[in-house]
């Protein structure tokens, strides 16, 4: 297609974004394949799809960060070569990444003052006054004098948005902005986005929950496997079911209705409560506290019981003690108070090896750091847990371990060539299955599953859910930490909300999204009020 033809009419009415047959490759992997889309200015456009669908790549190529291997990207009629932030900024497009990158020790005003070219002399008060007025006009609800590191996640995100708006972006792209927010935080973010739209800014939101898309977007574009499936479609014509099928594809009909809804964030799932009040407890925490670390505040008198045969979810905005909780139960964070019982045995000070011996298994937060040694062979990764249980001088038969590992991998449907290949050569989903095959053996009595489906595609997510339910049916107790409420609603029997290292509320099915969301935010306010009398 002739680019001149595409770009004709550049100016006030030019489309905010044109993607014409855009293909992006990372090495051998094709992340986007011949995607064509045209976004009109002054509207809110949602890009929707599962993990691995190419959403983030699309956001990055649209923002001019990644050069397309083939095809053409144009913003407000200006073609972007890609790979040049300054060029993209001149064209009027800004991207807010999924992970934040503002300097933690800066104040909001300093960030805004110093992102662009620096000139002249400033006073602290001068720039704070200047930027406070500007922030208020955008309706971002930020205090210009606050330091980035003191802001809650939601406000850090606002600061990122403010940073992006300094250069007067006319197309603002937000990559998975709701992934780190509570339901109420999401609503406030959407209010800010609508405010930006009123001011004439075109917004492209990368999302993966249908509920959110239908709440905010004017148009919806669906990606799957790097290809454009549909869009931009007018959001008002769409139904939740129709979108779910577009996102999942052919496999949609085969999925259980509850799982399907949870995968795409369509509706709050309901399911039977499997908790048995008489079942023996697999884990009891009594008043457990841990010391504050650099990363967070530590646990604060957490009481929690998980019985055999139930899945207990830990909900909460990230950074509210979930990591500390998992580390404390695993014995990697010493307790400052309280007691931990695993299968009725006191284990407050027991090392992880002893806890594993008592049936504790861990699917850790960081798959590639805590879960696997990426540069080591698969079979070594798999057999580590067994080796730890014995003496350091115990003889090892590598061949036997390799074939045992291969057998386990096949049972878990891991796609691999050779048990001697390094773990880093596997995709995220396969890597997670290697961890499952190691941690979910028949001896598991209590499984800590920390964000076990983060970043996984549908197939791998379903494999994880199936494995967790299977373990539950085999009378293991399961602690599932997730920042995805739909996931928790779909597979948990009970949900405990954590705020600032405390367990503040407990819910059982039928789930009430609003109530859980309120617990995540209101309790936070209460704690802050208590701390500042």
């Amino acid at each position: 297609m002739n680019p001149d033809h595409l770009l004709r009419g550049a100016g006030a009415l030019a489309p905010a974004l044109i993607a014409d047959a855009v293909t992006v490759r990372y090495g051998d992997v094709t992340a986007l394949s011949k995607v064509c889309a045209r976004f009109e200015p002054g509207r809110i456009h949602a890009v929707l799809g599962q993990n691995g669908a190419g959403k983030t790549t699309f956001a990055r190529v649209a923002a001019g960060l990644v050069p397309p291997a083939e095809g053409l990207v144009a913003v407000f009629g200006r073609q972007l070569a890609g790979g040049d932030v300054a060029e993209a900024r001149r064209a009027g497009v800004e991207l807010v990444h999924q992970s934040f990158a503002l300097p933690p020790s800066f104040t909001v005003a300093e960030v805004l003052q110093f992102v662009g070219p620096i000139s002249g002399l400033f006073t602290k008060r001068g720039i704070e006054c200047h930027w406070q007025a500007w922030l208020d006009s955008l309706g971002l609800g930020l205090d210009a004098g606050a330091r980035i590191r003191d802001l809650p996640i939601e406000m850090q995100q606002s600061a990122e948005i403010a940073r992006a708006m300094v250069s007067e972006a006319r197309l603002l792209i937000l990559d998975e902005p709701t992934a780190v927010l509570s339901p109420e935080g999401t609503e406030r973010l959407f209010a800010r986005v609508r405010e930006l739209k009123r001011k004439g800014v075109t917004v492209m939101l990368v999302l993966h929950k249908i509920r959110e898309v239908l709440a905010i977007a004017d148009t919806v574009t669906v990606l799957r496997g790097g290809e454009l499936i549909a869009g931009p479609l007018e959001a008002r014509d769409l139904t939740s079911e129709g979108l779910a099928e577009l996102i999942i594809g052919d496999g949609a009909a085969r999925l259980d209705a509850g799982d399907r809804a949870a995968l795409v964030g369509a509706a709050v799932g309901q399911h039977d409560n499997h908790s048995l009040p008489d079942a023996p407890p697999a884990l009891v925490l009594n008043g457990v506290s841990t010391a504050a670390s650099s990363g967070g505040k530590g646990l604060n008198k957490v009481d929690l019981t998980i019985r055999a045969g139930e899945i207990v979810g830990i909900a909460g905005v990230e950074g509210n003690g979930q990591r500390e909780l998992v580390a404390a139960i695993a014995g990697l964070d010493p307790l400052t108070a309280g007691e931990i019982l695993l299968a009725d045995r006191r284990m407050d000070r027991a090392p992880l090896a002893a806890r594993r011996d008592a049936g504790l298994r861990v699917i850790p937060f960081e798959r590639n750091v805590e879960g696997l040694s990426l540069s080591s062979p698969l079979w070594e990764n798999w057999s580590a847990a067994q080796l730890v249980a014995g003496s350091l001088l115990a003889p090892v038969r590598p061949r036997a371990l390799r074939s045992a590992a291969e057998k386990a991998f096949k049972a878990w449907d891991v796609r691999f060539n050779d048990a001697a290949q390094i773990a880093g050569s596997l995709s995220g989903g396969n890597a997670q299955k290697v961890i499952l095959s190691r941690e979910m053996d028949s001896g598991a009595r209590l499984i800590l599953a920390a964000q076990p489906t983060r970043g996984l595609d549908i197939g791998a997510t379903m494999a994880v859910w199936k494995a967790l339910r299977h373990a539950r049916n085999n009378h293991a107790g399961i602690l599932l930490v997730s920042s995805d409420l739909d996931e928790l609603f779909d597979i948990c029997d009970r949900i405990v909300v954590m705020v600032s290292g405390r367990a503040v509320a407990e819910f059982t099915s039928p789930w009430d999204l609003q109530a859980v969301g309120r617990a995540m935010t209101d309790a936070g306010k209460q704690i802050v009020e208590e701390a500042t009398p």
Partner: protein
Amino acid sequence: MTGRLYPVIQTGAFILLALILCSLIFAAVGLSATETLRAILDGAFFRPNALSYILRWGLPLLITAVGVVISFRAGYFNIGAQGQFYLGAICAAFAAEWLRGSPAFVAVPACLLAGMAGGALWALWPALLRVKAGADEVITTMMGNFIAAQILVHVTSGPLKDPSGSGQQASSRPIEAAWRISDSSGSSLIIIAIAALVVLLGWWLVNRTSFGILSGLAGRNPVMVTWQGAKVQRIAISAFVLSGALAGLAGSVELMGPNGRLASGFLPDHGFTAILIALVAGMSVIAAAFIALFFGALTSSGLWLPVMTGLPSSAIDIINASIALFITAKAGVFRGLLIRLRR
């Protein structure tokens, strides 16, 4: 099979590249590159009794290098092999002094064990500083080398000084002749047997024990091993101590074998060459054994060159340095070190 041969071919290619770089350097200082290289290879492999010289220098290097491989594999950059080697020789010399008069079958094993204990102790304190206080072992073990060199000077001119010794060279009294495990030519069946045992046990430890697999995992990702419940501190201390013990063993072999007495300034610097060997060998004990013999040949050639051809023995240092340059350029070991320093 190609998968297994690949690292061999790669290492061979690096050594070849290093030799080419050396010839360029020789040419630049006005030496004939081809003649110099030929002289070096003659000295290493083709002079009379070349094999016995290779073994004399290669076997102590081998023993030390196996230890260095063990600590590198576990992710600890124990570059203190030289100091541990000195302490091994010193402790063996003390043992020999105390045991004067006892029969050889008691004294020889006792001295070798004392050497291992000395080396192990000299690796233990950096290990404890590392796991208890987080002190970087690169710094502590390197400082340990300097301290060990001073201890060597002190004991040879103090507690162990040979009263009948004359002249500038401070040294201990000679080891009893019956205890020597080789003459001054330096190769003997006993030393070959010790080296073979070290290779066998080292290979078994690394490839066929829990320690070997877990230390290999810990070397690449200590966080993962921690989440598996391994006692990472115990693995670390074991790796340090084993590595020091082997360097100490090499020191006592030098003392009981070719040297026959402890003399300041006359012990070879096997510890540094062993680090180079471990880097070239990747993480493999067997590879380290072969490469140690190769470097043993180069070392013997370095002593032969000035005598027979008038070429400077530093030609060998240039070869060693160029090999180190090429190997470290590719070594994941150093990448690992950088990642850790950044943390």
